C-alpha cells in the first residue's frame, strides 16, 4: 500500500506533464500485492476491500484537513484504484487457481 500511495502521488503530479506516470507500473505492483494477499490467506473480496479502505482513508483525511479534492484528481485516484484492484484480483485468482491444481 505505501508503494501504491507513492504511485498515485506520482500519477497526480505528472498527469499533465509530457511524461505521465505509466499505469502499467501500478498494475505490476498491484499484481505482486495480489499474490502477497494469497500468501497471507486473504480472500479475493478482501483484496477489493483493502484498496477500498485506501480510497476511504484519502477522502476522509481530505475532509478532516479541509483539503478539497477536485473532480479531475478524484477521477485520477479512482482510475489508479480500478487498475490496481483489477490487476490484484486477476493475480489473486490466477495464483489461487494454480495452487489448487
Amino acid at each position: 500500500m505505501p508503494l501504491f500511495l507513492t504511485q498515485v502521488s506520482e500519477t497526480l503530479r505528472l498527469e499533465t506533464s509530457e511524461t505521465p506516470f505509466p499505469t502499467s507500473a501500478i498494475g505490476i505492483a498491484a499484481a505482486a500485492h495480489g499474490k502477497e494477499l494469497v500468501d497471507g490467506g486473504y480472500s479475493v473480496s478482501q483484496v477489493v476491500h483493502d484498496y477500498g479502505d485506501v480510497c476511504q482513508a484519502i477522502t476522509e483525511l481530505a475532509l478532516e484537513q479541509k483539503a478539497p479534492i477536485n473532480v479531475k484528481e478524484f477521477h485520477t485516484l479512482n482510475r489508479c484504484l480500478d487498475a490496481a484492484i483489477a490487476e490484484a484480483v486477476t493475480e489473486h485468482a490466477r495464483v489461487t487457481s494454480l495452487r489448487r491444481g
Partner: protein
Amino acid sequence: MVNVPLHEFIGAHREELIARCTTELAKRAAPTTIAPRINHGVPFFLDQLIGELRGGAPKTEDVVKGARTHGRELLLQGFAIAEGVYEYGDLRRAVTDLAVETDTVIGAEDIRILNRSLDLAIAGAVTQHACGQAAARDGESHDLLILLDSATAAFEALRKGQVGVGGSTGAILHRSLASMHALLDRPKRIPA
C-alpha cells in the same frame, strides 16, 4: 450549485448513468455482449443503492447477491475477472461526472455509502467469478468461498461501524460462520 440527495440524483438520471456505463463497456467489449450483462449489473445495483439512500435498511446482502449474479454472468460470457472491477468503476465515474455537469453537490455521507456499496459489489462480482472457476474443479471449495464472501461482506459493514452487530448484518456473519463450520465438520466422502 445545488445540493441534492444522492438517491434523488440517481433517480432523476438513472437512464443516463446506465447509458454512460454502457458506452464505456462498449469500448472494452463487443456490442453483442452488452445487453444481457448490463441489465443485471449496474441497473440492479442502482436500485439497491437508492433503497438504502432513502433511509431504508443497509442493502449489504442484496447488493452482494446482485453482484454475484453479475459476476457469474461475466464468467459465463467469457469475460475476465477484472471486468467486474471496471464496470462498477465506470458507474462511480459516471455519477461524479454527471454531478459536475449538472452543478450538483452530493453530500459526503452519500458519497461514502456509494463508495462502500461499490466496494461490496466489486467484491461480490469478483468472488463469484473466482468461485465459478473453482466450482468446475471442486464443489466444496465453491461453497466455502461463497460463505467466506458473505462473512467478509458482513464483517466489513460491521467494522466500518455502519450497522450494529445485533442486527441483520450480524446475523449474516453468524449464519455464514456456522455454515462454514458445518461444511468443514461434514464427514468426507471416501472415493470408491
